[in-house]
């Protein structure tokens, strides 16, 4: 995104090019122009721009994309860690 870059080399985005059928859906849904498409195959053009929203993975018809999408704020993650350790009841999220 213009004027904004987050940490490098952290995104969990993975693309299985062999499975890709070149439908272009991932390019359509990604708000950060992470993918490019050439000769009926998608490729990851800019992984560091990925915000792990999960839109591409959810909309890929052949499940060629995986990404660890989910809550992305400090309190949300703390709640999640507490829940994993069974210290807190489920609930609580970012951006109400």
């Amino acid at each position: 995104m213009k004027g904004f870059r987050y940490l490098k080399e952290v995104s969990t985005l993975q693309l299985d090019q062999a499975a890709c059928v070149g439908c272009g859906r991932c390019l359509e849904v990604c708000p950060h122009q992470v993918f490019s498409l050439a000769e009926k195959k998608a490729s990851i053009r800019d992984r560091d721009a990925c915000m792990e929203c999960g839109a591409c993975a959810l909309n890929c018809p052949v499940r060629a994309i995986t990404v660890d999408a989910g809550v992305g704020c400090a309190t949300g993650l703390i709640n999640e860690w507490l829940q994993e350790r069974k210290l807190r009841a489920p609930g609580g999220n970012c951006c109400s």
Partner: protein
Amino acid sequence: MSYMVPPGLYAIGTPAADDPVLVTANYKMSYDIIRQSLTGRNVWLLVLETYGINVWCAAGKGTFGTGELVRRIESSRLAEVISHRRLLLPILGAPGVSAHEVSRRSGFSVSYATIRAADLPEYLDNGKVTTPAMRELTFTFYERLVLIPVELVQALKPVALIGGVLLMLVALLGDTASGVAAFCAFFGAVLAGIVLGPLLLPWLPGPSFALKGAAIGLFWFGFFYLLAGGDSWSRPVTLAIFLAIPAVSAFFTLNFTGCSTYTSRSGVKKEMRIALPVMGGVLLICAVLLLAQRLL
């Protein structure tokens, strides 16, 4: 004031059976913006139940999602009202909606139109083709500003609690004036982290939100030092405040990653793994400094 619009099918202008169908959340503001930007046109608007939450956040939670969309198509009898089978969705709704699932379950095809409602007229005039600019996300000063009130409200309870405890502790250990001063320092650090951090985001140093927050915290420390007559503080007290304020601001700016639209969950995790122990350590050092000052 209500932030919700009842879900269902709405008409903007006098749409016919072959006019486009837009899908949105029942967040009042999204709904109003769409209505405004499309006045003078004839389109259908299918409003999903997202409990008054905007498209982006609702998609993340899954309420703006495949299931709700399919249910709403059925309950609004959309198939009987319109003749085509194409739905136009906001791009930021895509994290909750699986286009191929929707078409498998409802027979409607999904196109992701634009990110901003303001681009919809151009999109429709453009023969329903999304230009690169329409799918490029922005995070302008104003876009950040409107997110801040909710953040403030959410922080209110824990902040009041911690602030109150702090006030009492310091007042008990020292005197009431110091207690009030400590509360002000803390409250200012929270405000700096929640309000100034996000507003000044692009101008604060580094990609890390925790560092950005710490930077704005330092700024508040300088201000507070001048305001509260810092030259009369003892060294340990000055050091403790100098350390504690940036730590508090850093936490709240880091929390803003939940609202930002370019930070990744893995990135925030990485920041937290470093930042939380550092913040904890800093607060511990502060406590030791203040106690030592008191007891020695």
